[in-house]
């Protein structure tokens, strides 16, 4: 770990003021950043501690949605009765992630910003364009079983590891950001960036932008499912995960909101998949067509080729479960 300056921000304005350079990072739970700093994969010159800011709490909004403070822990968010009632897919996704200890510490804002779990990103002995732009991507021809099949570029095939963000993406969440020019909101769908030739840039945040909250619209209703497929029953990142909000009316799918984890550099959502489902009667053929659309551009890198059939199978199972007539 390199030496760094440490500032404890007293209020949001001060936090934003103290930031502003690429060298600065906000720190809250630190569940990912501290590990990366010890390995010197990240070496910020300055940390702005935001844990004393008034960014906790979950409030109901005028439109029937929720405003989740950036410092709400994953545990508290998952256990919130309103979340469990109105946005159960989010609660389930949270509980599918990490471990109890980590969820007690990890925050909502920080979870959105966790870095990839690509082996080569963590290894300073290996080239990685995300860690060291221009050095190359060791993962493409290396061990890539856990890496992305959608949205990749020749420069990076990393996945985004969050479960929470996948559910939020399916729920049309928005991110509230405080920056030098004041407050703004960005839809989660526009929050992340594809790697292209700048995989080190992962979001639209500027250095002095601070996530202050995540906004959920009013409950989406429908059946909500979070299915996470992984290498062991707990404490493993998703090979594939599906967050689904599905409603069936009169034998026809009336609502389909689907987001996927483990497939791409961001929680993945494909409007064409949802468009193909809405208005159609559930059937195996329909679900297969949805998978065709989702995976049309999918590209495996050898070790992760299996994610393509695995996604197809998992999506079909989730859609079947979501559209089955209630017993």
């Amino acid at each position: 770990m390199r030496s760094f300056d440490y500032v404890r921000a007293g209020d949001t304005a001060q936090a934003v003021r103290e930031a502003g350079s690429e060298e600065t990072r906000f720190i809250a739970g630190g569940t990912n950043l501290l590990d990366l700093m010890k390995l010197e994969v990240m070496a910020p010159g300055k940390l702005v501690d935001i844990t004393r800011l008034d960014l906790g709490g979950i409030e109901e909004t005028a439109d029937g949605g929720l405003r989740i403070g950036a410092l709400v822990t994953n545990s508290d968010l998952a256990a919130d009765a309103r979340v469990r009632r109105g946005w159960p897919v989010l609660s389930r996704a949270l509980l599918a992630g990490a471990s109890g200890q980590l969820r007690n510490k990890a925050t909502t804002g920080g979870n959105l910003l966790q870095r990839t779990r690509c082996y080569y990103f963590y290894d300073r002995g290996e080239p990685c364009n995300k860690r060291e732009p221009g050095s190359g991507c060791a993962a493409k021809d290396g061990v890539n079983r856990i890496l992305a099949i959608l949205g990749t570029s020749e420069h990076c095939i990393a996945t985004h590891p969050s479960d929470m963000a996948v559910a939020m993406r399916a729920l049309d969440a928005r991110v509230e950001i405080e920056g030098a020019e004041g407050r703004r909101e960005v839809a989660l769908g526009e929050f992340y960036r594809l790697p292209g030739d700048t995989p080190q840039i992962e979001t639209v945040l500027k250095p002095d932008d601070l996530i202050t909250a995540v906004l959920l619209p009013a409950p989406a209703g429908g059946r909500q499912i979070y299915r996470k497929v992984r290498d062991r029953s707990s404490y493993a990142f998703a090979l594939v995960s599906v967050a689904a909000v599905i409603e069936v009316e009169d034998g026809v799918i009336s609502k389909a909101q689907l987001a996927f984890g483990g497939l791409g550099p961001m929680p993945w959502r494909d409007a064409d998949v949802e468009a193909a489902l809405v208005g159609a009667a559930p059937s195996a053929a329909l679900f297969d067509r949805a998978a065709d659309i989702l995976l049309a551009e999918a590209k495996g890198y050898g070790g992760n080729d299996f994610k393509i059939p695995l996604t197809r199978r998992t999506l079909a199972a989730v859609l079947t479960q979501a559209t089955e007539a209630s017993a």
Partner: protein
Amino acid sequence: MTLETIRHLKHDTPDHDRRLDGMAQGVLGTDMDRPEGPLKVSGRATYAAETAPEGMAHGYLVRAATIGRITGSNAEAVQAMPGVLHVLEDERMIRNAAQGMAGKSPVQKQGQAWYVGQPVACVVAESFEQARHAAQAMMVTIEPDGTHAFDAESREAQVETPEKKQLVQGDFDGAMSGAAFSIDNDYRTSSMSSAAMEPHASIAQWDEDGAVTLRGSYQLLRFNKNELADVLGVAPEKVRILSPYVGGGFGSKLGLAPEAVAAALSAQVLGRPVRVVLHRRQVFETVTRRSETKQRIRLACDAQGKLTAIGHENLVSQLPEEVFSEPVAQGTHFQYAAPNRLVGHHIARIRRPAAGSVRAPGEAVGVTAFEIAVDELAKAAGIDPLEFRLRNVPEKHPENGKPFSSSTMEATLREGAKRFGWEHTAPRQRREGEWWIGTGMAGCVRVNMMIEAHARVVLTGQGVRVECDMTDIGTGSYAILTQVAAEMLGFAPSQVETVLGDTDLPPASGSGGSFGAASTSTAVYLACMELRERLAAKIGVKETELTLKDGHAIHDNRQTKLSELLGEEEWRALGHLEPGKAGQDVRQATWGAVFAEVAVSDVTGETRVRRMEGTFACGRILNLKTARSQCHGGMIWGLGLALTEALEHDPRDGHMVNRDLAEYHLPVNLDVPQLGVHFLEERDDWANPLQAKGIGELAICGSGSAVINAIENACGVRVRQLPATLDRVMEGLAAHD
């Protein structure tokens, strides 16, 4: 009076006296709690890194990022960094941990980076953080020294076929071609890590007389002492190693590891104590791993399911200059009878981090693959896999005709089946929602070993002290040695103090190969027998007429307090066990049977183990709780071997890619179902005078195959490459769709 007498046993013949059965204290074999348990759960047991001698500096190892000849470094620049005291680039640094029981230096640096991840320097600084940062800034220049192979199965790999490790008996090919049923398959197991909870750590401190004390985390102290002395070029008397508590070993702490050498060399240069703790990522790379294996197994049987041919040809990997190679077929030599036999052993010299002993070297992977193959042959022959095994129980060692010291294979199979409620149908018969349900079983077998051990027992009127350099690696040494002494000398366990983990004490067996409990307990037993005879002589009775209980000597309907008999005296005895012909004239082994029920998702190929039942016969049980814990652990290792654990090596340079506990997937609590463990208590007189045998490794030798066989029974998918991760199962499921 401190007269110390010695009782020596060269174990050449079976001991039919079974003296333990005549003891009266009633503590042996119970589920007594570990005496050191409260210290451990309250954080007061001091593990290797948990002391801080005055003036201690901190070292951090620097790893080679490529392979080749070391030609230079930026040591001068690193030396100038804040807090840095010394940059150690000594040629005596070791390349990787020593192999178990080496007793001499492992391969040293020799100016080479042999594999990616090798420690090539150690940076010592005032604080741990300074040392770590400076070590990460250190660059070692490495000139490539040609091309190397990184995969045992690659064409470039140099393969050795040591003559002594090949075997042909009978007409193997003829038996295969003329068989009623046969199978011929390749099975693969993955490179694996011990992943003990406590990372390796050492604190070294030299005194004015040129003697070094090392606080470390090791399994075999009397060997480790000689290893460190050899590395440093000092006499063994100048080395003391302290390992009172060891947070898990599983083979990874059998041999001296790089952090100990770096600490000792740095401390010598600086003239102050130095602590070196391996980062978890360094534990993976520098401590020996279990080799991946490719196992071609060919089996043939007649129409009645009697095995006629057994072929087991293995390919393992190892770094150049290491003498160990995974003894895959160790159990194959005697587990099943068949007249025609073929064993092949091949070692590919490749540049992956060094391989070595990991819990149950040999049988863990060998029996596991073999028991999958047996399941396949039983299926081919249309015979229930339990029944198939029962038809092939060997009466004597099938290769050399020696008798078994005890044969419990059939009994464990039958008892295990009863406890599990064995019912077996054709595959793909039971379904719950998307989940296929199936059952599988396997036999377990592990050679039983014993090695030389000494232990001192000190008797006073108030209690007993046991002293030796034995280690407790979480297995329960403190408990069982306390129990043996308490039982033999008639004291409550609370009146017995057991002091371990110090090479200044008599050299015990150490912990490894499941030989620790039996070997060192025997040394304690011998010392206790010596004391019992001295007591009997003093009283004037025969030892066999003497009952010791609750601090009293009881004989001829009379009861005398030991405190009255001994007064202020302290009686000392040294027990010395030496293995003898009893280990050679018969085949000693432990046996077991494991049954499993699994659910396999027809969608994803995920496997969930629903229950596992293990029945084991491993001699006299000294402590029911620690014995059961060993079997729980072994069965969970079996789960990991079968389903989750694999070290991934980069195809381009062999480095370990997933070298942390997030990505090297040990089973977590949720992966582990209800585990049943049952012991068939036996008295194997060939084993030793206690009739105690190894337990720790048995349960991993085959239990994974019960899971793999159950997967096949559930969903019809036969996985021959372990672990059976969901993608491997899914591929088979897709073929059924």
